[in-house]
């Protein structure tokens, strides 16, 4: 074969290759990768729940890449950053995260992330999506930080109204709050409910608001005040150590005033720290997210899929549910953004716009979250808010109420 013939054949092969590539399906051409920055706390106050929460959200991204991502020609790449639940650490990490990863969205964890990034994200035009309930201090219009749940105070107010209905009678429900000044978020939770109680004295009579350390030495005296004040419910939305100390304090006083916990310090975590769920018999957890009980709900079925096919190793509990719901929240918004703008050239700004443009239905989040309609007025949906209530019965977590209405709470 002469040199010219070889060159000719090479040219022919190259032309064929170009022709084949040009006729390939569109999705292969439009293969796009977008980065997500996952803020995590593997060594701070939430180190105990972080591996489970991280497992939940990462499993969703793996699932999305394998299913929707393949259809759309998009891969979501993610990386965890250790923040130690410390606002200063988040603030110092952020410039590096931005230059290293150039994320289209941040997957946040809690209050310190909000405190550190609320002023920076609008400038950088990158939205942050949380798993937790929202905070009063973050309740501002045109936010770049979004929560699938209302504020902790909305959730506790919803729970207390439900509890009052269950109790019956006309009088207000006598309530005590146990909070901590260790974090602005903890103070915020108490302040919101205090305002709600002040504006609705016919519903809630706030008999005690107690602040303590994150690892209290002894709460027997404080719990005696709560018992003496005739409290019918004790709200603790801080951490598991405070729940344990409060429970011991109540037991010392011979009282079983029901405690309401949130998702991050809920029944399984606090029960584990107390030595067994049976210690929390009759206590509650309430939040705007699926309750991780044994019932065969759509959320439970989706969890089973993640375990069977996408390597999720976390147990079925509220923390896993929080991670999965956060992953689904983020993935669905990105899905909507791709539907509106195409798979190529997606930006953080487009992702944020997509959040306002279309309702995230409960079906899209496999029942983990209620349907969510966001507006620029608030970082969380202002209407149609619901909470679910779980309790411990015979040593097992069961669903006590689903879709409890959340009342209007004014800004504080």
């Amino acid at each position, binding site marked *: 074969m002469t040199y010219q013939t070889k060159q000719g054949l090479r040219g022919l092969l190259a032309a064929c290759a170009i022709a084949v590539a040009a006729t390939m399906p569109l999705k292969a051409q439009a293969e796009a990768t977008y980065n997500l920055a996952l803020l995590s706390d593997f*060594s701070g106050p939430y180190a105990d729940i*972080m591996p489970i929460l991280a497992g939940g959200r990462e499993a969703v991204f793996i699932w999305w890449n394998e299913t929707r991502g393949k259809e759309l020609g998009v891969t979501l790449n993610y990386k965890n950053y250790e923040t130690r639940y410390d606002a200063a650490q988040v603030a110092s990490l952020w410039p590096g995260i931005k230059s290293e990863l150039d994320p289209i969205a941040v997957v946040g964890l809690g209050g310190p992330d909000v405190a550190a990034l609320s002023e920076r994200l609008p400038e950088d035009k990158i939205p942050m999506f949380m798993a937790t309930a929202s905070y009063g201090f973050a309740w501002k219009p045109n936010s770049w930080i979004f929560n699938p749940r209302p504020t902790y105070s909305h959730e506790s107010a919803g729970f207390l109204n439900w509890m009052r209905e269950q109790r019956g009678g006309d009088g207000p429900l006598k309530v005590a709050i146990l909070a*901590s000044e260790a974090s602005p978020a903890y103070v915020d939770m108490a302040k919101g409910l205090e305002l709600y109680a002040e504006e609705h004295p016919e519903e809630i009579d706030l008999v005690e608001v107690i*602040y303590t350390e994150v*690892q209290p*030495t*002894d709460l027997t005296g404080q719990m005696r005040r709560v018992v003496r004040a005739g409290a019918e419910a004790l709200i603790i939305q801080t951490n598991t*150590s405070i729940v344990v100390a409060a429970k011991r304090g109540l037991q010392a006083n011979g009282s079983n005033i029901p405690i309401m916990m949130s998702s991050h310090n809920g029944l399984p975590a606090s029960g*584990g720290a107390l030595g067994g769920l049976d210690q929390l018999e009759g206590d509650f957890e309430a939040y705007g997210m699926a309750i991780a009980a044994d019932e065969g709900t759509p959320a439970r079925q989706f969890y089973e899929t993640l375990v069977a096919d996408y390597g999720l190793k976390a147990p079925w509990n509220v923390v896993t549910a929080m991670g999965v719901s956060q992953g689904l929240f983020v993935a669905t918004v990105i899905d909507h953004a791709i539907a509106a703008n195409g798979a190529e050239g997606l930006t953080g700004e487009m992702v944020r716009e997509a959040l306002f443009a279309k309702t995230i239905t409960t079906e899209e989040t496999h029942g983990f979250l209620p349907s969510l309609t966001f507006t620029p007025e608030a970082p969380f949906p202002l209407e149609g808010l619901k909470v679910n209530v779980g309790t411990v019965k015979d040593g097992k977590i069961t669903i006590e109420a689903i879709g409890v209405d959340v009342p209007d709470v004014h800004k504080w």
Partner: protein
Amino acid sequence: MVYFINDIITGALIGLLYSLVAMGFVVIYRASKVFNFAQGELVIIGGFIVWFTTMQAGLSLWLSIPISLVLAGLVGYAIERIFLTKLIGESVFSMVMVTVGLLILLRGLVLLVFGPAVRPFPIIFPLKPLFLGDMLIPMNLLMGGIITIVAAVGLSWFFNRTRSGLRMTAVAEDHVVASSMGISVKGSIAFAWVLGAILSTIGAMIFLSGKSLTFLASDIGFAALPVALFAGLESIGGLILAGIIIGIAQSLTTNYLDPLIGGSLGSVVPYIIMLAILLIRPTGLFGWRTIERV
């Protein structure tokens, strides 16, 4: 009135728990002039040792408590041998900086070895409180208060009345001079760290009995700091009075002022008292005044 007295008693007992943890600071300081910033971490290590021997190894409390105290002593000894022996004769500042490093290292080690999970701590003292009429006294704090007073009396006698104790005080004054007098500087400092670790483990048992254990419990070290500085870093007996004063002040603030102001002034009060006393008397209530003749 009954409740007011009850709050005073409970406050005094919480203060005595702070005194016990502060005793760890003082013992190490009296033997080496080193302020151990990692005292809270020693409490946590002691707590995890107790948790391991009871909850993991399944030993009875009668067996696990002495074993835990021995193991804690060995940990204290190992820390001294590995990190501090080589610094004998060096500036006190170097040794203090090592304890700051220890704080970070021990916290990291606890996370690495035991993980971040919140664990149930064994019930060392009965959960049922002692009832005196309408008064209610938590048993762990009551027993802790008695242990603290016994430990303070014993250690005061040891440091002030025995040759070994006085030798340790000489070591704290000047390593080189003590060495030239034939006193084993290494031995004295090692003994102080063993004692400090054991006291911290007893503190962990009182503090955490029936509650939960995480590395965050090391914050008790910071709660004990005002007691140590208020008493003066050389006075073991003074810790009792300082602890009681601070505990009562904190309890009354928490129970009577906090509800009025809607905050947590009770957490800050110990530090306010500490700063006030340090302004008036920089060596603390019972700290030694050093007179230098030039």
